[in-house]
């Protein structure tokens, strides 16, 4: 679809302050969200769109837990031209720390240009500015780009708002569930069913690094489950390789060349590479225990996986060639679905202990385990592209609905990601280009 061609970053410059005075430390455990004023975007031709753009940005930044948009009712100054320095005192007095001023220009050819300036109203200076040209129908992505801009300006790190989540939509009673592959924007908008549900179910989807493919498990009644690939651009899906037995728990390697999978044959599950082109399977473990859920470190040097070789299921790490397999978790209960952070510094997991499930993180050397979420069932963590947020699915009480949730790496800001049906197995896309 060449998504990146749709959004053009355009030059939009005022003299920019050399260094921002206003900063958010996102590593702190508890911090009050920074008050931000986000008036509706100005537009001489399309006020509704200006309002919608601002609303998307407010929602993104609220969900980040780092910023708190101030009610528009409190605003004193009415912006009429975003290229004029605002009256900082008017914004300070209502408690704002920063002001996001923007406008939507109709370019007359079906495209709009969305201009944004971020002001530090305490330091009396512009923090930065950004502008995008995009087909009008693509305005929502441009708004997410602006949210990413604000996030990176204020935190010094990349944002994650211009990204998508693929997940499994679940309908029907528990004994006869229909599970379909569904994709949506990270804020829950534009859900689209991709596949599944007719005579097969899908589980555990994961994005390729270029976001153009999804690998997942297709689950038929009468034969072992198999790893599949779905091409987002063409809508074509295909089984990868032909083997007796079951292939499952697929994940792309960071460069996208190969899949890491589990395969089960004759009662034994091991971890292997699976070449998506040739369908060739390259075994990495050969242990009589259950070895599942492989995930590679972003530098391509290590693989984490889960194994019950020590009696209970725990998280292990090995070299990319399968050598030096070592256990890294030693807590009570069981540990599964390890997934390496895109930053490389942490491994997220699902832990089960005394009838409760937990989402947690641990360093690759096994140190610093922290639990971030707990419920009757929480499972299958997936990292935001910047490695600061984890999404997962949750069943809050026995028999309750299965929903998508997200929590910050700090353990704060647990929130639901809205979906039209019950939902599980979220997988966050890389940041879109």
């Amino acid at each position, binding site marked *: 679809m060449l998504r990146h061609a749709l959004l053009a970053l355009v030059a939009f410059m005022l003299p920019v302050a050399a260094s921002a005075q206003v900063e958010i430390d996102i590593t702190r455990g508890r911090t009050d969200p920074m008050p931000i004023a986000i008036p509706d975007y100005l537009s001489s031709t399309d006020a509704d769109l200006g309002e919608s753009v601002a609303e998307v940005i407010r929602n993104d930044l609220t969900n980040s837990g780092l910023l708190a948009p101030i009610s528009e009712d409190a605003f004193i100054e009415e912006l009429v031209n975003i290229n004029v320095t605002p009256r900082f005192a008017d914004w300070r007095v209502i408690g704002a720390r920063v002001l996001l001023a923007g406008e939507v220009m109709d370019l007359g050819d079906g495209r709009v240009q969305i201009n944004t300036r971020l002001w530090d109203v305490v330091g009396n200076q512009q923090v930065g500015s950004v502008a995008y040209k995009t087909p009008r129908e693509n305005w929502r992505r441009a708004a997410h780009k602006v949210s990413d801009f604000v996030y990176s300006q204020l935190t010094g790190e990349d944002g994650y708002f211009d990204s998508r989540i693929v997940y499994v939509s679940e309908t029907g009673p528990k004994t006869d569930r229909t599970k379909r592959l569904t994709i949506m924007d990270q804020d829950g908008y534009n859900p689209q069913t991709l596949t599944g549900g007719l005579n097969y179910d899908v*589980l555990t989807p994961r994005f390729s690094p270029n976001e153009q493919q999804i690998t997942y498990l297709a689950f038929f009644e009468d034969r072992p*489950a198999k790893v599949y690939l779905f091409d987002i651009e063409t809508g074509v899906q295909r089984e990868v390789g032909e083997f007796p037995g079951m292939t499952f728990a697929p994940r792309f390697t960071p460069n996208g060349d190969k899949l890491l999978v589990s395969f089960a044959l004759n009662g034994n599950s091991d971890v292997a590479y699976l070449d998506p082109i040739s369908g060739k399977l390259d075994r990495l473990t050969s242990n009589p225990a259950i070895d599942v859920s492989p995930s590679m470190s972003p530098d391509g040097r290590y693989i984490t996986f889960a194994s019950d070789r020590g009696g209970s299921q725990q998280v292990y790490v090995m070299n990319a060639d399968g050598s030096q397999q070592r256990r890294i978790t030693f807590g009570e209960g069981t540990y599964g679905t390890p997934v390496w952070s895109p930053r490389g510094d942490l491994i997220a997991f699902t832990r089960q202990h005394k009838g409760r499930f937990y989402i947690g993180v641990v360093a690759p050397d096994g140190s610093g385990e922290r639990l971030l979420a707990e419920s009757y069932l929480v499972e*299958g963590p997936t990292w935001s592209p910047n490695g600061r947020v984890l999404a997962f699915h949750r069943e809050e009480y026995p028999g309750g609905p299965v929903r998508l949730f997200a929590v910050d790496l700090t353990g704060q800001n647990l929130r639901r990601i809205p979906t039209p049906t019950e939902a599980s197995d979220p997988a966050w896309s890389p940041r879109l280009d």
Partner: protein
Amino acid sequence: MKFNVLGTTGILASVALLAACATTEEEVIEVVEEPVIEEPAMSKLEMAQMELEENVGHRVFFGYDQYNLTPEAQATLRRQAAFLMMPENADLRIRIEGNCDERGTREYNLALGERRAEAAKAFLVGLGVEPTRISTVSYGKERPIDPRSTPEAWAKNRNATTRIVGDTEAMI
């Protein structure tokens, strides 16, 4: 199919009853004899499945996070093996479906369900059932037979279920 027939009859009967209740004396209700619905003859495979479920036992159960066969499971599988090795059943093929309760991750439970199905298969093969007659599949925790979240439901959902899927002649 059998249940559908019964269900239809039941609905007809209750409609007639309702109609009767709503009737006043002036109205005359003519009782119409219900058409006799013939049950379609069961195929050989359906007969075999019924025999398996009602007399042999088509399901064996496992402990939490276990795939070893309990004495009860072994007894059921012995009956299954004897059933499958009867001369008149020699052409039947089966699928063993491995299932897990909800207390585990999806991916681990897929592996565990496969182990359960393979454990049951290996036992049948050990008793002389041709391995080519047995296929296995794991449904992990995705196909619970009891939707509740109770110890009783979990115990039911940790199973290996045997189904008649065809006869070897049909395969040729």
